[in-house]
Structure formats: structure tokens, C-alpha cells
């Protein structure tokens, strides 16, 4: 084989399709079974794309400057600007590239209209897009191995030689002229998470694929590849604590935090629930819950909040009084009553409007609730348990503008390229902005595919 692609998610498939189109023979090595192929991409739904004028999918304009500004803002400047510029620039033709392989796109879903200028949506979601890519790969003659976990990488003088893969319990060595590393981060490796976060990690829920064990990342770091990104950090959101340990995806998210109060195991509030709108709120609450004892919290609302947030996949825990609710949640009833009473007393009169940063706030509380503060007084009372839901990790491999992996001596490896989450830390040192993971995967998948094919076919 000319090119071996390790990982069959978005970045891997973009690389495989591009390398194949460039004339290379390609094999994709995917550790998941066919049903769960596609890594975390199967849970995605959109891609951020710049454009200078309205397109058939996106309104107005989203210029390269604005995109870059957004990236710089969410990462706090922790990005490689040259690589980020490349992602931004190449994001423009991602929609037409996706369509050329049969991927179907649509304008934003209802309820995500705030993204109608910036993000194109995949019709049916990321798994549908992956299906289109796999179908295209099959048409073009790309070979795909499923249930094929990478066990080792053979390198010689910084050059890739072969990959050893376990298939049906047998170890097989697959040589190739170039390799694309597109095997994601380590967020589903519970041991690794525990190494970084201690026992608290046992209470984390992994929102995506159970197959991102970081094996390829670890092998490359052991081979002397340069790391990038904070090894202790991960992107995490607050999700329903009843979610499955892995693969719960989008439906486990919960967005009623701002409509009531959030208490910890001791029935105490710990952060301003009304601080900001969805994107920011979404990004910080996972970490806030992770810092609470037992990594658990409870969002408590009353009947006034019903119907104001996206329906959750799990039913609310319901009780006619705060006291009974506390009992159902195994919280100290007196403490919860005290917290709610104190909160209710502190609520100042205002005009509730969930669509703006309204004038409903509390006075004299620690912490205050700065918007959407309404008394919790109308039964039945509802509660949702919250846990940190890990989306992805930031630790990755440093690459250059041609997606080549940089080794410890600072030189790029000639035939090892990386794409997707395994190198996203170059562009996204921290934080997140909707749809940028798929943009990085698509842009660098294509770059990696071209580079790998160039090396292999030359």
C-alpha cells in the first residue's frame, strides 16, 4: 500500500479520499466495527465555513478575519496562527468538497439559527456524512479494515515503515510508504483520564466514541513526536448524569441551567447560573461540575421553566415540594430548602426574557444569579442530575503547514502526517467554537492526504 490511514473518522476519510484521488493506493484502518465507524464524527452535525458573500446555505458573510478572531478569542491566543489561517482559508470550499463526494448539506436546524451565518449542517448528521464518505471510498477503491486496532508503529530514523494491527486476535504488520495519523484523542481511555485527573475521572462521562483510546497518540509520543496542547485539559460540558458511560452524544445535553438554580451534593449553589448565553454556558458548566465534590450537581427548576428548553432524553425527577425533591435526589432536605429560600428572597423584580440578558437578578447572594432569576415557587419542581461529559482532549501532535508531524529535533517526518483531533491542539489550544473540529478535520485531512500521496507516489 502507498498510504495507510489510521482512524476512520472525518479526518481519516478526507485524507483517504484525497490520497486516492491523487493516485495513491489507500488502506483505512478503523478500530471500531462497521456499525460504530467514524469516531466522534458520527456524533457531529456541522462544520464552520468562511464565506465573503451569501451562499446557498449560509447567510451574509463570515470573513477570514472574523473566523480567525473567533478562534483567537476562544483559545485565548493558544493557537499556531499560520495553521489557523490555513484552516480558515480552506474552510471556504469545504462545503463544495463535501458535496463532491455525495455528502448532503442543509441550512441550520431549527433552534440553531444563531449558526446560520457560520455553520453548514450535515443532512442527517455526521454519521450520514461518514456513510457518504465510506460509500465514495468504496467506489474509488479504498480498502477499509474494521475491528482493526493499532498495536504498534514501526519507525526508522523518523520515517514510518509499517503499522501492526490486531484483527480477529491476530497481529498483522501492514507496511506503507506513508501514514496518516487520524485516530483522535484519548478521551475514552479511562486509565489515561485517571492518570491526569485522579479518582474524579471515574465520575466523568465520555460523550463520544469509546474507541478514542489515544493509542496512536501515545505510540507517536513514545517515538519522540513533539506534543502540542495541554496534556491535562479536555473539552467538557454538563450533561445528564444518567447518560451512558460512552457514546451518549447530543441527546444527553441539558440546557435548563439558566432557568433555575444548580446545587452540588451539599445542596449549595456554586456558580452564577445566569451569567451568559448558551455557547459560553455550555462550555463552562462541565468543568464547574467536575470541580464539585463527587463530580455531581443538580439543576433545579420549577413549573414556570417547562417548555422553555430543548426536551431532554431523560425524564425530569419531579416532586411537589423542594423537600420531597431533595429526598428523591438524596440531598440534605434542610439544606436544599435553605438554599431555595435564600435564593427566592434574593430575587429582585424584573421582566423575564430568556432571549436576552434580562433584568431578573438576585441581590445579596453568594454567588449571585445575574440574569433570568425567578423564584422557585411553582410546583411541581423538577431536577436533572448533571455530570461532566468529556467531548475531546487537547493533547496532540505538533504538525507543520503540510500536516507533517514534527519530531523532537524540530524536523518534520517526511512520511508521517496527522489530521483531526490528534493534531487539533495546534489550532485549538483551549476552548471550542461550534463546528470547528470538523473544519480542522476536513482541511487537514485533505492536506494530509495530498502530502501522504505526494510522498508515496513520488
Amino acid at each position, binding site marked *: 500500500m502507498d498510504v495507510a490511514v489510521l482512524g476512520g473518522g472525518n479526518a481519516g476519510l478526507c485524507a483517504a479520499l484525497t490520497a486516492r484521488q491523487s493516485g495513491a493506493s489507500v488502506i483505512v484502518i478503523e478500530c471500531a466495527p462497521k*456499525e*460504530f465507524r467514524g469516531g466522534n464524527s*458520527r*456524533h457531529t*452535525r456541522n462544520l464552520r465555513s468562511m464565506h465573503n458573500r451569501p451562499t446557498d446555505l449560509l447567510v451574509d458573510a463570515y470573513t477570514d478575519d472574523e473566523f480567525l478572531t473567533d478562534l483567537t478569542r476562544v483559545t485565548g491566543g493558544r493557537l499556531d496562527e499560520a495553521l489557523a489561517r490555513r484552516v480558515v482559508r480552506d474552510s471556504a470550499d469545504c462545503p463544495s468538497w463535501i458535496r463532491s463526494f455525495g455528502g*448532503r448539506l*442543509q441550512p441550520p*436546524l*431549527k*433552534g440553531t439559527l444563531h449558526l446560520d451565518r457560520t455553520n453548514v449542517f*450535515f*443532512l*442527517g*448528521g*455526521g*454519521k*450520514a456524512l461518514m*456513510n457518504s464518505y465510506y*460509500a465514495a471510498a468504496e467506489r474509488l477503491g479504498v480498502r477499509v479494515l474494521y475491528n482493526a486496532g493499532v498495536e504498534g508503529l514501526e519507525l526508522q530514523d523518523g520515517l514510518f515503515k509499517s503499522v501492526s494491527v490486531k484483527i480477529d486476535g491476530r497481529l498483522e504488520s501492514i507496511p506503507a510508504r506513508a501514514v496518516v495519523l487520524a485516530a483522535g484523542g484519548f478521551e475514552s481511555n479511562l486509565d489515561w483520564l485517571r492518570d491526569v485527573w485522579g479518582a474524579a475521572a471515574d465520575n466523568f462521562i465520555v460523550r463520544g466514541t469509546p474507541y478514542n483510546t489515544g493509542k496512536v497518540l501515545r505510540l507517536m509520543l513514545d517515538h519522540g513526536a513533539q506534543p502540542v496542547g495541554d496534556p491535562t485539559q479536555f473539552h467538557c460540558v454538563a450533561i445528564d448524569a444518567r447518560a*451512558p458511560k460512552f*457514546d451518549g*452524544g*447530543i*441527546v444527553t*445535553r441539558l440546557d435548563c441551567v439558566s432557568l433555575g438554580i444548580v446545587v452540588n451534593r451539599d445542596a449549595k449553589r456554586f456558580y452564577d447560573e445566569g451569567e451568559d448565553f448558551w455557547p459560553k454556558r455550555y462550555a463552562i458548566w462541565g468543568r464547574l461540575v467536575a470541580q464539585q465534590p463527587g463530580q455531581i450537581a443538580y439543576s433545579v427548576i420549577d413549573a414556570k421553566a417547562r*417548555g422553555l428548553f*430543548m*426536551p*431532554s*432524553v431523560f425524564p425530569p425527577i419531579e416532586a411537589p415540594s423542594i423537600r420531597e425533591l431533595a429526598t428523591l435526589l438524596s440531598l440534605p432536605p434542610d439544606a436544599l430548602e435553605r438554599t431555595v429560600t435564600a435564593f427566592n428572597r434574593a430575587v429582585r423584580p424584573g421582566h423575564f426574557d430568556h432571549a436576552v440578558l434580562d433584568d431578573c437578578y438576585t441581590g445579596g447572594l453568594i454567588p449571585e444569579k445575574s440574569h433570568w432569576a425567578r423564584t422557585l415557587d411553582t410546583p411541581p419542581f423538577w431536577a436533572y442530575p448533571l455530570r461532566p461529559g468529556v467531548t475531546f482532549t487537547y493533547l496532540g501532535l505538533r504538525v507543520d503547514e503540510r500536516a507533517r508531524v514534527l519530531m523532537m529535533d524540530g524536523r518534520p517526518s517526511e512520511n508521517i502526517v496527522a489530521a483531526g483531533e490528534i493534531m487539533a491542539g495546534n489550532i485549538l489550544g483551549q476552548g471550542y467554537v461550534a463546528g470547528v473540529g470538523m473544519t480542522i478535520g476536513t482541511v487537514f485531512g485533505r492536506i494530509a492526504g495530498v502530502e501522504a500521496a505526494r510522498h508515496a507516489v513520488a
Partner: protein
Amino acid sequence: MLSRELLAQGQHVMTVCNACRYCEAYCPVFQAMESRTSFAKGDMLYLANLCHNCGECLYACQYAPPHEFGINVPRVMSESRLASYEEYCWPGFMSAAFRRNGVLASLVLSVACMLVLWPFVQSTSTGGNFYRVVPHDVMVGVFGIVGAFVVLALAIGVRRALRSYGVSAFRRTDNPVEAGRYGRALRDALSLRHLHGNGADCTSDNEQRSPWRRWFHHCTFYGFLLCFASTSVAAIYHVVFGWPAPYAYSSAPVVLGTIGGVGLLVGPVGLLTMRRRRDPAMTDPSQRGLDESFVAMLSVTSVTGLLLLGMRERPIMPVLLLVHLGFVLGLFLTLPYGKFVHGLYRMAALLKFSTESQ
């Protein structure tokens, strides 16, 4: 009937879908779902009859089996649809027919119809005049009675469907948008609009997209309509103008019947072939007989009709006529208790959809 387990399963599926919504742009099932937060029995039966069983949402689903959520919308909708046929069936005791409806049952019924018609055969002389074999009055009498019963049974079924969906078919309105709901529902039904969602085709028998299921359905449906038109025109010729059959090969009844008959042959055979190739993940195996008996009856009716036309001058005509009439009568009798009802309950669902989505 919609069992408690099936209702609970449908509610589970819709709850997950409603929290995800990735499939929103595929078809009206998801758009109708999003305007609801809970799913009562009537809601589930309504959504089930909006579903074309194309499979797009199953292949796209991140929660499809073997995921522990086990989301399979086409399958649960298919099973709920069958339950809706039973729920709306009149008279109620006949609902058992939906699960026992097989090709064999329909054939036996048709042969029985032939035997019933047998004593009315007047003459085996030919000359292409059907009424000399089975008198006109007998045909009108038998088909009139059966037809009236069938129309009554179907009408009661549709009324029950509308009630269960919670839509009023005849509400008076001065609002032109609301008045347009009939037109929109009819357009969606006649064009199978939601079987090519987003302007492109849908998947149908497997993961590949193709237009064939839509085209074969069009052949079947419009073939059926043309055959019906042929009979109606012939009746008008006979009753209004006093022109007796047989009609020339270039006459309206024969042309309509021939084109319709070909459609009614090509369509069902195509649908049957596609059904056999369908991904078993999204079909309900217990409905195989229901689906196959309807398309089998349609194609047999068509084949015998075309044969009858081609051989109406031959001595075998009386036999063919008896056979054809037996199949037509059998087809009519099974209409309210077979797959035919899907069109009416879907039409009612489209009316509900166009009413609530304006």
C-alpha cells in the same frame, strides 16, 4: 392494535429523536415530532402514517442498533402503522385480517368470488360482448353492493383516523392559508413529495438512494386510477349514451384500461421486487403477507384484465371474464382489510400535517 409495549417503544424512540433532531430535514415525521413534547397514542399513529419507511433516518442514526438506545424509526413506525390499520378498521372484528392477510388468503377469496359469480353466467357465446356472458344488471348489482360496502368501510376507517390524529377535515375557515391545506396535502400525496426529500431521492431497499420505489408506486397508483377511470367511462357510455360494449381498441375505455393495466402490472412487480431486497433491519417481517397480497392482487387483476382484452374475440373469453371478475371482486373485498388503507390513512396524516404546519 397498538400494544402498550409498542406505544412505549415508539415514545422512547421519539423522545431520543426529539432531543437529537439531526434528521429534521429528512421528512415531515421529524418536523411534526418537534412540535410535540409528549407522544400519546394518536400522535404515534399519526407519525407512523407520515412515515414512508425509506430508511434514511436509520442509516444516519448515531443511536441505531447496536447502540444501547436502539433507535430504529422506520421499524417502530412500520409496526405502529399496522396497529393503526387495526385500530381504525370497521367492522372491528375484521381487524384480525391485517395479520392473516396473505397471498393465499386473497387467492382463495378470489376463487370463491368466481364460484359465486358462476351461476350468473348466461352464455358461453363470444363475440367480445361481456354482458352476454354475465348480464349487465348482475355486474352492476354485485359490484354495486360490494362497492357500497367497501366505500362505507373505508370512510369509517378514515373518519376514525382523522379523529385519532385530532384533525377536523371539514372545519370552515376564512383564512386562505388554512383553506389551502387540502391542496397541499393532495399535492404531497399525489407526488409522493416526501419520498424525495431535499430534492434528491431517498434510500428505499438498501443504503443506496434510488428513484425506483417512487416510480413504481406512481405506476401502481396511477395505473389503478386509470383502470378505475376506464370502468367509469364505460359505465357512462353504457348508461348515459346507451353505447353498448364491446368498445373499439381505440376507444377511451380500452385505451385507459390498457395503459392503466400496464402500469398496474409494472408498478406492483417492481414494488414486490424491491420489497424482497429490502434491508430487513427496517421492515416488520409480520407484514410481508399484507404487502405482498395487495401487490399480488393488483398485478393479477391487471394481467387477467389485459388477457381478457387481448382475447375477447376468442372462445376462452367467458372463462377469462369469470376469472377476471373474480379477482376484481376479491380485490375490492380486501381493500378495507389490506394494504390499500395505507394510502387513505397517509392522506389523512398529510392533511393533519398541512393543517398544523401552516
